[in-house]
């Protein structure tokens, strides 16, 4: 008979984020059929009493479990990959999966350095015999197309030099576009050419100044004003306040009710960001990670975010 302790261990090993491989190994290698039966009876989250008198796996639980097991494999594969190939593949996948995943395209295009993004474009040529911009342009519809193609094509200046005057007037232009000063013709900010070219060609230091200038002339920040235009909001966030974006990704992924995509986002961040900023945010979440994440996946997260990374 399985004792309540063991049942609890099994439940824990399979709950949370990732799986506790060590515990699972020790439970399974020591269990015989009868023992396993009583464990199944004890884990009602994973096993249901079937009308024909046997305990069967809960299908949706298996599906979630698959995803949890996959977390470690994904973080390993992604981490070992050359960053250019990684980004090229992530871009392709996001494009294939469609509009709900376009935020990944925004994330990559906006958080990489100019040369890293260029590298991703080169890798894309090698992997798929096409350019990322031609695939985006031919598969994305509507106003999102203009934004995404332009974001991915950017080769932003990375120097510190910023023209205050230009930043001031561009903050104004953004405010106008967002407030739709077009009379009764309501146009989404993403459809305004001004908005697109400012966000997709200006340097990041410049855009950070634009963000600050905007705060001076508006009660809300640009991101607060863009709550309804999610893709555009994330664009601004990734470009101007990446810390906020990273924090949110960590936070969402480590919640009780975290969905698969949220955890994938965490894996993606951890495997791809070399940012010093990221480490700062990660330390804030270290306790949460220790509490909610299990097994090899946890070890990777903590290891990767530790200070002594080579």
């Amino acid at each position, binding site marked *: 008979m399985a004792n309540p302790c063991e049942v609890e261990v099994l439940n824990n090993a399979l709950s949370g984020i990732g799986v506790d491989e060590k515990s699972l190994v020790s439970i399974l290698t020591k269990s015989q059929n009868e023992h396993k039966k009583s464990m199944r009876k004890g884990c009602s989250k994973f096993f249901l009493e079937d009308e024909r008198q046997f305990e069967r796996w809960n299908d949706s639980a298996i599906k979630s479990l698959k995803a949890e097991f996959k977390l470690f494999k994904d973080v390993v594969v992604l981490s070992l990959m050359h960053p250019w190939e990684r980004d090229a593949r992530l871009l392709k996948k996001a494009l294939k999966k469609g509009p709900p995943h376009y935020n990944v395209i925004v994330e990559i295009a906006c958080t990489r350095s100019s040369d890293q993004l*260029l590298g991703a*474009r*080169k890798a894309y*040529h090698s992997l798929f*015999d*096409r*350019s990322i*911009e*031609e695939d985006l*342009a*031919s598969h994305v519809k509507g106003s999102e*197309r*203009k934004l995404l*193609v*332009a974001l991915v*094509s*950017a*080769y*932003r*200046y*990375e*120097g510190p*030099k910023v023209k205050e005057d*230009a930043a001031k007037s561009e903050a104004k232009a953004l405010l106008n576009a967002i407030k739709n000063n077009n009379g009764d013709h309501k146009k989404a900010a993403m459809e305004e*050419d001004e908005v697109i*070219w400012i966000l*997709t*060609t*200006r*340097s990041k230091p410049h855009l950070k100044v634009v963000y600050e200038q905007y705060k001076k002339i508006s009660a809300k920040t640009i991101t607060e004003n863009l709550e309804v235009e999610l893709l555009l909001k994330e664009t601004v966030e990734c470009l101007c306040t990446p810390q906020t974006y990273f924090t949110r990704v960590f936070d969402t992924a480590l919640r009780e009710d975290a969905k698969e995509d949220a955890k994938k986002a965490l894996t993606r961040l951890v495997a791809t960001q070399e940012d010093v900023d990221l480490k700062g945010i990660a330390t804030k979440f270290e306790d949460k990670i220790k509490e909610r994440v299990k097994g090899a996946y946890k070890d990777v997260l903590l290891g990767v975010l530790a200070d002594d990374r080579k």
Partner: protein
Amino acid sequence: MATIDVPEQVSVLADAEALRKACKGWGTDEKAIISVLGHRNAVQRKQIRLAYEDLYQEDLIKRLESELSGDFEKAVYRWVLDPADRDAVLANVAIKKLSPDHHVIVEISCTRSPEELLAVRRAYQTRYKHSLEEDVAAHTKGDTRKLLVSLVSAFRYDGEEINTRVANSEAKNLHEAVKDKEFNHEEIIRILSTRSKMQLMATFNRYRDDHGTTITKNLEGDSGDEFLKTLRATIRCLNDPKKYFEKVLRNSIRRVGTDEDALTRVIVTRAEKDLKDIKELYYKRNSVSLDQAVAKDTSGDYKALLLTLLGKED
């Protein structure tokens, strides 16, 4: 094929000394400058500049700028620069004009290879502390802006793979956009600025086969429409760059008073690439050699430099 005549053996030290001698003292020995620089390729010119800097603690280009003047100076300046740097300068000059030279931006973004265009973008940032695309965006408007920013931002696939199905459907899209005179169509810009050059050739050919006429013929229209003009230039550059350059040369010489900027630009930027082929096209079209036409229309040291770059023997 290139037209410049480069000797077998070159000593960049001797060259640097010769240039120093040409610039020292009263007056300048322009012939000496031409006879050295006019016969050196990009790699050698760069080495000469480094050697000159090493020997005399002075930037050769700055020295030449101060010694020379007029069209000759402009041509020498452009010739001596690294190709990527040169294109960056040409782009900046074109953008900053009161009435920007859109076709120069088109030329640079459409006739250079994807890697060359990247090098131009890098050189532009180093020189001007802005990205090429933000400067283009800030100085253009409307559909012209959309087209030009897309063109300079492109990093086209440079392989041989083409998709015939896509070529067929996009030839159709282009025809539809063109016949409705809806030239501002997003589709045209999308196709022209993202597809690889090989893919576009397949599309243009299909267009011609399906409709019995080239797409550029179907775009003939209001010469006052800046966007249309820019669009035509784009298609011409993508479809047949040599033919395009021949036309620019023909127009630059034919004008009352020569358009030296255009003449210099084409000769300097193509001398190490395909100026020979362009010369052949020119002769076929005009029944007079480009050398003769240039000799007739220009004078002095400027003429001497151009003719040297065209391959004339000293």
